[in-house]
């Protein structure tokens, strides 16, 4: 017990790192998912150049979602970590600076964000398609156009359809953050592993990690439930 109290603040810091990593990755994944869904849904229109660009985006988005769903998180993380280091070395060499270390936190965020962005692309695409077509037309009939129709009519319904899938992706993403400890980031898992080994009681410290992760997944599960209820308040 004393051991836990001694290392409590350290582990708490690790938990904060883990949560920051998860939230930032989710943010990146959301942006990528939004872009991917839009790219896949847009119909080619306008002048030939514009049409070509839209088609190209759709192709890139399809390639992205197919490839990203085939790679394990840890492998992508290592590719980005070593690749990022290489690119950084190249840049510092060109600029004549000393070598800098590529951030492990950044590599982790990029890898997790990229992977789950692919899953969110499909979630968002499905949710957008689930909003009935008549809703947009009804909004237009009320005199709402463009951004206002989107904000007042389409977006809230889109959120209602997207939330369950979004919540699932978040739960999987949170668990995915554990593997950043393998590239040496001092997150909750990495710290607990080190301390556990040096204190010769890895079981105890891993149990703490288990409890923290269960806490995160339980609290966010509860939160998503409330959000889902809020966004379906117009439904019976």
């Amino acid at each position: 017990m004393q051991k836990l109290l001694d290392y409590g603040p350290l582990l708490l810091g690790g938990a904060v790192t883990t949560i920051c990593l998860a939230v930032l990755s989710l943010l990146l994944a959301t942006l990528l998912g939004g872009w991917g869904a839009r790219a896949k849904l847009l119909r080619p229109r306008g002048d030939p150049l514009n049409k070509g660009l839209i088609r190209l985006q759709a192709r890139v988005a399809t390639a992205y979602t197919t490839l990203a769903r085939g790679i394990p998180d840890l492998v992508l993380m290592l590719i980005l970590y070593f690749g990022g280091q290489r690119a950084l070395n190249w840049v510092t060499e060109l600029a004549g600076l000393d070598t800098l270390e590529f951030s492990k936190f950044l590599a982790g965020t990029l890898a997790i964000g990229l992977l789950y962005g692919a899953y969110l692309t499909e979630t968002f695409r499905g949710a957008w398609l689930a909003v009935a077509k008549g809703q947009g037309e009804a909004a237009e009939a009320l005199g709402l156009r463009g951004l206002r129709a989107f904000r007042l009519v389409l977006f809230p319904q889109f959120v209602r359809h997207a939330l369950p899938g979004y919540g699932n992706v978040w739960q999987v993403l949170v668990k995915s953050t554990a593997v950043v400890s393998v590239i040496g980031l001092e997150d909750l898992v990495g710290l607990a592993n080190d301390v556990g080994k040096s204190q010769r009681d890895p079981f105890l410290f891993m149990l703490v990690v288990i409890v923290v992760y269960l806490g995160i997944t339980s609290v966010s599960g509860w939160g998503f439930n409330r959000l889902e209820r809020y966004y379906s308040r117009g439904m019976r």
Partner: protein
Amino acid sequence: MRFDLVFEHWDLFARGVVTTLELVALSLAVGFCIALPCGLALARGHRSARLIRAYVYVFRGTPLLVQTYLFYYGLGVTLGQYDWVRDSLFWPFLRDAWWIALLVFSLNSGAYATEIIRGAVITIPRGELEAARALGLSDRQVDFLVLIPSALRRALPQYGNEVVFMLHGSVVAGVITIQDIFGVTQTFRARYYVAYEGFLTAAALYMAITFVIVLIFRQLEKRYLAHLGLSR
């Protein structure tokens, strides 16, 4: 880029692929054997449901890496302090990364599959069971001839996802020194000082296996879900 080194040592990667496939297939098989009774028990509110719910909650709510560390270091170091554990029959297994990985992966996959099977069982159309009873089948026959096959068919698409997740999760085995695809990549890096090429190769291998799994499940779905008329 030194991909010639990868090609020169292709046998290393081939062995990695075999180890990964072995480990994933065995874990899925054991996990399935855990999940079938657990899923049925959950769907029916058997008195063991509470215990099963706790098991599923813990294994689905925490990262596979942490579960693996808990068993690998936890059992090895913490339990290893006691003589009676060291003297026991199971000690060689508890020290061996391969057995630990198999145990943890099976429990993990079992927890996810339990949820999938539970979902498939509770969504069975009532009429299907009533029709079976009307034909004079006994309870046991209804279970084994109608309920379970029907649930497993409908669980196929989700189970396909679980198989891919298990494959991707299995990189954790490489972290605890097993020479799976990820493990041999680490060995390759340590031996020849080339990191990038190895990881790209690993990514390509995992991706290829993922596509094969997806293809297999697409065929299975075409065959076993043909009655739904979804196949194009």
